[in-house]
């Protein structure tokens, strides 16, 4: 086979179009490599080259998924590449979902996909079967390592003509796919060996990790909403103007608790967003469009709800680790219970 023909998928940022203010641009195609694509091309050398780059805004992709997927399908059918590189997306949620969504399309067309992602990025769990995802760090600062890792996997893929081995051996994240292989020892022997290792406190590796079904059953609904105390929580980073607790614009290390007792609507003078992962123009102009305090105060006044809890809780859900988000929510939940809150409206951007 000659030189591998590659199409590269990038968001508006890595595609060098712009930041959050350009996150709503529809997909476009550019000839050859763009941004990190140039480094990929250099590293891939004689074996492969990026012939086209698809660039799409992260918000546009997530708000118009089907439309973009159809467009990507057309482009891929037209170019007919041997492989697609998506991202890498690190821990950028919308970008990870976009890379996965593009991988799904390519997979349907039998085009292999190599991408890079931080394992907590929701895009990984949603689309893991469609791409070979190389594990990256949680921020773009990890590009230095992600790039050679992705290139190495592509080279292996080409060398082995698509017949890659196990995730750990080859350097990609598990795809949740089972393949038949010939083992030297029969199953019963392997199982007993594993058991003995376990009893002896030695390391062993399961051949079939149990899926992690961490689901919480729905709680019973509210019986009498006109007497219920309802609280607002957001991952959209709405904070009092000036961000008094200095909640970080990404990878937030804290959350804030703010009084809305005497506030009847949020204004551009009173509140703003600390979130660095979406275009802040709208939220800064009218914070109610992220945290609907105005409407809930009206409904409280009209007796439609019992009480809007005097405090709201806010953090920035932008590259924030799952462990941190979990810990914040546990603390928040405990306080809400102590304050007699019966239901929560949680808004996300």
């Amino acid at each position, binding site marked *: 086979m000659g030189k591998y023909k590659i199409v590269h998928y990038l968001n508006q940022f890595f595609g060098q179009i712009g930041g959050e203010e350009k*996150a709503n641009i529809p997909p476009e195609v550019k000839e050859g490599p763009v941004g990190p694509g140039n480094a990929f091309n250099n590293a891939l050398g004689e074996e492969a080259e990026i012939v086209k780059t698809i660039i799409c805004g992260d*918000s546009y992709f*997530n*708000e118009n998924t089907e439309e973009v997927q159809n467009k990507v399908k057309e482009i891929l059918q037209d170019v007919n590449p041997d492989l697609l590189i998506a991202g890498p997306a690190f821990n950028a*949620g*919308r970008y990870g*979902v976009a890379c996965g969504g593009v991988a799904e399309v390519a997979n349907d067309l039998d085009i292999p996909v190599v991408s890079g992602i931080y394992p907590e990025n*929701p895009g990984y769990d*949603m689309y893991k079967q469609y791409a070979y995802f190389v594990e990256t760090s949680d921020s773009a600062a990890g590009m230095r390592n992600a790039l050679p890792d992705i290139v190495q996997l592509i080279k292996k893929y080409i060398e082995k003509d698509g017949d890659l081995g196990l995730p750990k051996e080859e350097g990609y994240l598990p795809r949740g796919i089972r393949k038949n292989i010939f083992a030297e020892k029969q199953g019963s022997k392997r199982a007993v060996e594993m058991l003995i290792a376990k009893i002896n406190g030695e390391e062993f590796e399961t051949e079939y990790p149990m899926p992690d079904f*961490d*689901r*919480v*059953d*729905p*709680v*019973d*609904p*509210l*019986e009498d*909403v006109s007497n219920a105390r*309802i609280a607002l*929580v957001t*991952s*959209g980073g709405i904070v009092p103007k000036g961000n008094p607790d200095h909640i970080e614009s990404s990878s937030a290390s804290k959350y804030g608790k703010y009084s809305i007792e005497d506030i009847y609507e949020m204004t551009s003078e009173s509140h703003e967003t600390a979130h660095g992962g*979406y275009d*802040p123009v*709208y*939220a800064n*102009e*009218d914070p*109610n*469009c*992220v945290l*609907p305090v*105005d*409407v*809930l105060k009206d*409904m409280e006044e009209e007796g*439609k*709800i019992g009480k809007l809890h005097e405090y709201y809780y806010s*953090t920035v*859900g932008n590259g924030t680790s799952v462990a941190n*988000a*979990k810990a914040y*929510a*546990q603390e*928040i*939940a*405990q306080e*809400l*219970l102590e304050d007699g*809150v*019966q*239901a*929560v*409206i*949680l*808004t*996300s*951007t």
Partner: protein
Amino acid sequence: MVKEIERAGIPVVHIATVIPISKTVGANRIIPAVAIPHPLGDPNLAKAKQKAMRRIMVEKSINALETPVDSQTVFEG
């Protein structure tokens, strides 16, 4: 966050634009939002109209909190 609050026994309604993410994080009552940077607003509309639209979305959220569900449910329309 949705999951941990619900785990504590408080029903949560999640207003979010990217429904697949909301499902992945384990929300049980989901209200589709308008857009990522303005989930409960639409800058193309006049202020009063935006608020009216927001009111409808919040009422839908409250209805969702009053509705028994036995699995992840997206309250459309």
